[in-house]
């Protein structure tokens, strides 16, 4: 398969990348690992005559702990995140998303920024970023802004980014004590590219009263974007942290929070049933971790 002709820019600073993006506007395509962009160009799903590669911008691939948050650069790869000690210790659900994306060959190239900007409803890192309440860091030549990841996805392949903007990274607050999080994906085959259903949960509980203080549940592959199961989250707040509650959360997520579709990977009914099961399981696992 041939790649179309294009001009390649490899800026070394965010500033230069932003200027290029401003100059070329919608004619230019940003590229990080290229595992989506190059496939889509080869298959003639997208077209461009200018590619701006972000890989030479060193600061975009850093993972930094600062105060009570961790800043993950947009170009950090899955392999890099899986190996990072702070991600392993404090963001286990995100690590498991990264461990599960594609094959190890893909994970050596695929970036977290690319995964979110590609905005597939089934993307692996998004539910985990949502349950850790990540903020998306965005820059343009006009300045910087931040948006909650929960408001970042607008539709399949569509995000909150404007044409001149670049996603530079994510800010994740360090999870509080007595909290845990877990991610599960179901696919046809572990290394294949698309999930049938994927769910992440985060739970914080009060060890004295054994009740749930706070939870976040994110569902993938059951709507046009990954979504939060808000009804289920609200329902279990203040409830005892035990299996019954997790089951009820699963039932609510299944019946009220999602409206999946049939496709060749799985039927809507199957997806819906699995949302119930996986919501319960991820909450249970989060609770075990929190203790």
């Amino acid at each position, binding site marked *: *398969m*041939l*790649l*179309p*002709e*294009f*001009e*390649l820019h*490899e800026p070394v600073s965010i500033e230069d990348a932003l200027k290029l993006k401003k100059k070329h506007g919608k004619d230019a395509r940003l590229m990080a690992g*290229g*595992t989506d962009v*190059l*496939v889509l160009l*080869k*298959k003639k799903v997208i077209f461009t005559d200018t*590619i701006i*590669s972000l*890989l030479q911008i060193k600061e975009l691939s850093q993972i930094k702990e600062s105060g009570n948050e961790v800043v993950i650069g947009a170009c950090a790869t899955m*392999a890099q995140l899986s190996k990072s000690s702070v991600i392993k210790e404090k963001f286990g659900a995100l690590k498991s998303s990264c461990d599960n994306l*594609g*094959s*190890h*060959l*893909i994970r*050596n*190239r695929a970036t977290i920024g690319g995964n979110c900007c590609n905005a597939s409803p089934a993307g692996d890192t998004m539910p985990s970023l949502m349950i850790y309440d990540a903020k998306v860091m965005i820059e343009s030549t006009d300045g910087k802004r931040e948006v909650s990841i929960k408001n970042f996805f607008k539709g399949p392949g569509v995000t909150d980014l404007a044409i001149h903007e670049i996603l530079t990274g994510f800010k994740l607050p360090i999870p509080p004590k007595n909290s845990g999080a877990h991610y599960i994906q179901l696919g046809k085959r*572990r*290394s294949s*590219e698309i999930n049938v259903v994927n769910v992440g949960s985060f739970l914080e509980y009060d060890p004295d009263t054994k009740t749930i203080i706070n939870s976040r549940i994110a569902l993938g592959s059951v709507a046009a974007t990954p979504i939060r199961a808000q009804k289920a989250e609200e329902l279990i707040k203040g409830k005892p942290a035990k299996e019954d509650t997790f089951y009820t959360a699963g039932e609510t997520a299944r019946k009220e929070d999602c409206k999946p579709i049939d496709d060749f990977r799985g039927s809507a009914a199957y997806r819906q049933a699995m949302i119930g099961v996986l919501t319960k399981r991820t909450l249970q696992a989060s609770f075990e971790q929190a203790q």
Partner: protein
Amino acid sequence: MKKIINLTINDQAYEIAVVPNKTLADMLRYDLNLTGTKKGCDTGDCGACTVILNGDAVNSCLILAVQTDGAVIETIEGLATDEGLHPIQEAFVEKGAIQCGFCSPGMIMSTKNLLDKNANPTEEEIREGISGNLCRCTGYQKIFEAIDSQKS
């Protein structure tokens, strides 16, 4: 417009002019005649094009050749020496892990990268290590056995 890049492939230095829209797999095969690296799907699914780039196994069909300026690359051609095949290649032959052979270069490069990083992988680590490489012929078991026989 062509750009001149310098890189090291199998311990040999190369200087080559490439257009931006050429993948590493195509540069290896068509410009440098290193046709041991195969192309099956050209979209990252099959792993036939696996090479080791700066110490990590990657799909060379999803990497722009111009972006490998300064890189160190290992391909299947770098494994055998004047003394004969590389021990991993020997093991693949010995255990019947090769049938048509199309997946073998990629499979062997993934194996080499796995063993370079982890000399004593578990069964799960071995299976994970070749999970990006598809084989239409062997059913994987003999490939697994070949890799298992190379543990230290």
